[in-house]
Each structure stands twice: as structure tokens, then as C-alpha cells.
């Protein structure tokens, strides 16, 4: 099996997962006690109005028919009408997704670039103080409620020290960056708009750090344990016998192999990170998809929430596919399977 075959196989296997996911979300949203129309209109609405909305939303049709219609719409980029914005949910998502993408991606990058070296250092000094310190740090990080961590950062860095803005996505700059990708950092760079870039970056730092804490801890601990396991391997002894510098052994050989294990954790953590984004966006008034989703829940806007959940689920699947792709790169044995021995 070559690398390409492996990729195709992995890629194809995400399709049934996505279908299953859509069925699940759809069912959950429509079947569980299920009075979406009543909830949407509030307790004072007349029964007539509720019936009217049910008909309009197609809620009187059998569930499978609703699903098929929904999926048919999905293929054409139609996710149904949002009750709040009275626009198509797909249009809303296109508007809000880039902000969430920007935030979660940066958070994950911070988590990786701090977490991995932290794990390596801990692994190199197993059971000595750097290891214990990193362990304690990790425990603290995963135990912090993200919304509380965000508030503490706001109190300290934004309010007390006044270094960074406490909420929002960009300050009062002119000209505002023209929206091309929706990712402000990229847009302002493309437009060579320095002021906008700085402002966007300043607004991004605190929420991104808040989001990165828990995955950072997971990544550090996973890297540590796989590093220690890998460092015990015979080939490491072989390299040491040849007098190869420790740093090269650690960062070229051991880390590459153990990073494969770390990758799986990164895929998993990305899901948790998307979850935390819902509370962190609220804390920092970040105008992203998660804020939109929370608003949808509070307003009982079902189409909007199904759309948000689908996008989150699909992103998660996509990230895990990327993880598989990278895994094949870092540990070629997964696609060499069957050729050894």
C-alpha cells in the first residue's frame, strides 16, 4: 500500500462518518422531547401560530422525509432559514466561521508549539524537577474552566495592566481591512494594512491563549510519555553508540516518532477546543460561529444550531483526516503495513 492509497482510504472513510453524524444531529434536534416550534415562539404564542410555523418548517412530515429534504438542501448549500437573522443559515455560517477558524487555529498552534517542547524537556528530565513542574502545570491547565481562565486573563492583562483589549475582534482602525478570506490577520496582511493587523493580533492573543491551555497540557503529557517510551528503543542506543549529539537524537529521531502519538491527541483535542470555543467566544465577545450557536440555542433557533453543530462535526472530521495524513508522514509504517516481515 502506498502513501496515496492510504490517503484515499482514510479520506473515503470519513464520508460515512459524516453521514452518520448528520443523521445523529438531525435526529437529536428533532426528536428529543421535540417542541421546537413552541419553544421558538415562546409560551405566549397561539396554537395556531405554532401550527403555522410547524408547517412552514416541515415539522409535520415524517422524520426521514425531513432528513432527506434537509440533506438535499445541504448539497445545494441550503441549511434552512434562521429564525434570528431570517437569512439562510449557510449565509450566516460563511460570515461567522472565519472568526472561529482564526481563533481555534491560532490556539492550536500555540498549544502545539508550547506543549511539544514542554513535553520533550519533561521527557529528557524524567522524574526530575522540570518533569514535575511540567506535570503540575498540565494538571492546572486541564482543570481550569476555560471561561474562568478567560475572565482571569481579562482582569489581569486587560483591566489591571491594560496591555491588551478585553473584548472584540478588532479595534477602531481606519481603513478597516477589506474582507477577502474573513480571517482578519490574513486580510490585513493581504491589504498591507499594518494598523489593522496589529489591532487584530492584539484582540486575538487573550482568547487564543485561553483556548490553548487545555490542549497544551494534553499535548505536553502525551509528548512526554511517548518521548520516554521512544527514547528507550534500541535504535536510540545505536545512535548514542555512534556518538550522535543528544539534541539531534531527541529532535530528529525520537521526536518524529513520538510526535505521531502526539498527533492523535491533537486530533482529539481539537474537538474539545471547538467545544471550549463556545464559552471562550462569549467571554471575549468574539463574533464567531460559537457565539452565533449560543445565541441560536438561547433563541431556540433549531436550523441555526443544526448548521453550527454540523460544521463543528465536519471540521472535527476534517482535522482528524489531516491528522491521519500527517501521521502517515511521521510514521511511514502505517502505510507500509503488510510489507514488513
Amino acid at each position, binding site marked *: 500500500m502506498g502513501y496515496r492509497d492510504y490517503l484515499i482510504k482514510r479520506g473515503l472513510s470519513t464520508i460515512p462518518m459524516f453521514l452518520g453524524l448528520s443523521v445523529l444531529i438531525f435526529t437529536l434536534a428533532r426528536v428529543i422531547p421535540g417542541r421546537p416550534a413552541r419553544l421558538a415562539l415562546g409560551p405566549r404564542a397561539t396554537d395556531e401560530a405554532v401550527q403555522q410555523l410547524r408547517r412552514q418548517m416541515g415539522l409535520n412530515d415524517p422524520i426521514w422525509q425531513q432528513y432527506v429534504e434537509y440533506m438535499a438542501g445541504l448539497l445545494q448549500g441550503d441549511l434552512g432559514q434562521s429564525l434570528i437573522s431570517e437569512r439562510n443559515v449557510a449565509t450566516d455560517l460563511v460570515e461567522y466561521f472565519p472568526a472561529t477558524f482564526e481563533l481555534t487555529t491560532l490556539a492550536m498552534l500555540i498549544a502545539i508549539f508550547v506543549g511539544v517542547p514542554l513535553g520533550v524537556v519533561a521527557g529528557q528530565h524524567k522524574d526530575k524537577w522540570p518533569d514535575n513542574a511540567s506535570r503540575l502545570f498540565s494538571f492546572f491547565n486541564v482543570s481550569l474552566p476555560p471561561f474562568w481562565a478567560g475572565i482571569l486573563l481579562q482582569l489581569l492583562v486587560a483591566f489591571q495592566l491594560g496591555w491588551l483589549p478585553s473584548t472584540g475582534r478588532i479595534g477602531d482602525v481606519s481603513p478597516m481591512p477589506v474582507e477577502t478570506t474573513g480571517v482578519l490577520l490574513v486580510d490585513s496582511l493581504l491589504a498591507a494594512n499594518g494598523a489593522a493587523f496589529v489591532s487584530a493580533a492584539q484582540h486575538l492573543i487573550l482568547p487564543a491563549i485561553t483556548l490553548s491551555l487545555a490542549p497544551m497540557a494534553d499535548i505536553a503529557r502525551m509528548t512526554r510519555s511517548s518521548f520516554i517510551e521512544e527514547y528507550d*528503543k*534500541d*535504535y536510540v*542506543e*545505536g*545512535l*548514542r*553508540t*555512534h*556518538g*550522535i*549529539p543528544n*539534541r*539531534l537524537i531527541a*529532535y*530528529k*529521531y525520537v521526536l*518524529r*516518532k513520538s510526535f505521531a502519538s502526539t498527533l492523535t491527541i491533537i486530533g482529539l483535542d481539537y474537538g474539545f477546543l471547538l467545544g471550549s470555543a463556545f464559552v471562550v467566544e462569549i467571554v471575549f465577545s468574539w463574533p464567531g460561529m460559537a457565539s452565533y450557536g449560543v445565541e441560536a440555542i438561547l433563541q431556540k433557533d433549531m436550523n441555526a444550531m443544526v448548521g453550527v453543530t454540523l460544521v463543528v462535526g465536519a471540521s472535527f472530521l476534517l482535522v482528524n483526516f489531516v491528522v491521519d495524513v500527517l501521521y502517515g508522514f*511521521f*510514521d*511511514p*509504517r502505517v502505510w*507500509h503495513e503488510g*510489507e*514488513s516481515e
Partner: protein
Amino acid sequence: MTGSLLDVHDLSVSFDTYEGRHDVLDGVDLTVNEGETVALVGETGCGKSVTARSIMGTLPRPPGDITSGEIRYDGADLLADEAAHERVKGDEMSMIFQDPMTYLSPVYPVGSMMADVATYSGGRDASWWEILKNLLGHRADREAIRERSVELLDRMRIPDPEGTLDRYPVELSGGMRQRVIIAMALINEPDFLIADEPTTALDVTVQNQILDLLRERVEERDLSMLYITHNLGVAREIADRICIMYAGEIVEVGRTEDIFDAPLHPYTRGLLESIPKLTGFEGTGIDGQIPDYTDPPSGCRFHPRCPAAMEGTCDVEPVEEYAVGDDRTVACHLYEDGMDFEDAAAIAADEATYRGEDAQPAEAGVGGER
């Protein structure tokens, strides 16, 4: 200069584990002269690999602990001078391992690992910048190293050496991997090679090929080699001299033909007898197992298993190495220091030495263990 390249003197190594302290090596003396191949022979677990790792400086410390002794390479005291050890490692000394399946990094093509050995061995430091460049595949004198690698693989009779450099270890058979490992060990043109049972993990048919290839390379370059094995037959094929090791002690040293002609130590005799012979002679082997290192037997470590053990002597008095004739030492109470070789051989050859004590070894064994 007597021409000795490696000189291990009175090396003792202990391991601390939760069971207590294991005194694994107990005063090992070992010499390898220039251009000479010495075989270190003993059962699994007798301390051969610990000896090799001490010489190569890869003994895990802790739990390992070198409690006494010195290792001199070309005059430099490796245990005292860490910098010298790092410099010598990989550059002048090199090592081949037992299991070719696990001694190559699974995530890089074999050529990459060979190139790193060629570039970085000898305790050079690598800056972050250099590591980054390395990870991106840049390296100085890349072509020269590649050429050298190809040539070495070719000499190890690897078909398609050019292509092999770009293959991952999983794509190679065990025999091919071992050839790669040998080529890698030779890439810096070392003067001294340690081979730790390099054929044990391979198929029987491949074993001989590898052994022949290794011998060719050693002769061609006039290398000195310490060849570690549990197989006296292999030792006979490759070695000029043989050191027999038992339970962390060297019990007998001599020229290969001398050892085979007239084994002096009862343990050596046992080992020789346990080699299956074409004549159909049934080897008797040696009863018992390597002793527990946390509480090694008193006196001679071999006495509980020895057919010639003398009660009151072997289980009480520690043995020393006795020189018997030229180039021959043996650590056994049957012989005295300075005894001449003919006398010693006579004692060893006399069945009475063993039979006469027939009743005793059992008692000695019981007494020794209780």
C-alpha cells in the same frame, strides 16, 4: 607500546533495581591488541553486553553504576575523560548490534541515518540551526557522504545500493538490515569494532554470509574487533583469541586453537562439550543456571555448577586469574599461578579431576547453595 588497543582492567559494574543491587561485572580484565579479533564468549546474561556497553559508554546510569576499574583505549582513560570518550565513540570505535530489526530508526530511510552517523559522530555538538537544516534535508558534503554510503553498501554486497539508501528499514529483510548496520558502523573508518552477537537474530543461512562479510571487512581494513557471542563455534571461526566469561567474571583466556585443544577451566570444558558434534557425541552440557547477581555464590562464582569443585576451597576462597604458560590465563583453583601449561593440561585432561570428585560436586552444590 605492547600493541594493545583496548585495555579493560578490573571493571566492576552494578545495577540498582527494586530487588536490590546486582553485581553484574566483577573485576573484568580484557585486552584487544591492534589488528586482533577477540571473542568474548559466555551464556546469555553473563555480562557480555554490559561489558560492551561500558566500553561504548552507553550503559544506562542509573541504574547501572561502574564501581571500579578503568577502560583504556589507545592510551586514553575513557572512564576518567568523558570528552575523550565522546570523541572516540563512533569515530574510532564502532559497534554492531544483535537485533537488526530494532537498531534502525523506523521513520527515516536508512541513508539518512547513515549520513548522520557520518556527519555527527564523535561527540560533535549540533546547533538548533543545524538541526533545522538537517530536518529539511540540507547537509554539507551530501554527495560525498552518499557516494561513500553507496560504496560501503556495495561492499556489503547489497543489491541496488543506491536505491537501498532511500528505503525504510521495514522494506528490508533482516539480513539486509544487518548489512546496512555493519556498513553504518564502518562509515567513519573506525579502528576498533564491537560486534554484539550480530548473527544471533538471523536465519542460519544468512548467519554465515554476514559472518563472512564481517570477516572480510575486518581483514581488509586490519580492524581490531571484540566479537561477543554465546556460540563457541562462531568464536572459533572468527577470533584470534577467546575470553570465556561466566557470571560477570573472565574465567579463561587463550589463543583460539589453544582453547579448543586444551580447555582448562571446567566451565570452558562444559561449553565445548555442549557443542553438538558431527560424530554423534552427545554433549553433556552444564547443569544449573547463571547465579543470582544480588547474592552471588561465595568463593568461585562457578562452584555450585562445577563438576570439579573442591569443598572447602572453591566455595570459600575467591579465585584470581592465574597465568598458565604464555598467553593463557585461567581463573580456577585447580591451577596455581605460574603453573606450566603441560602440567595444567594434564590436570584438565585427567578424567579423575572430575570423576574423582563426583561425589563432591553434589555436596558442594548443596553446601554452596545452603
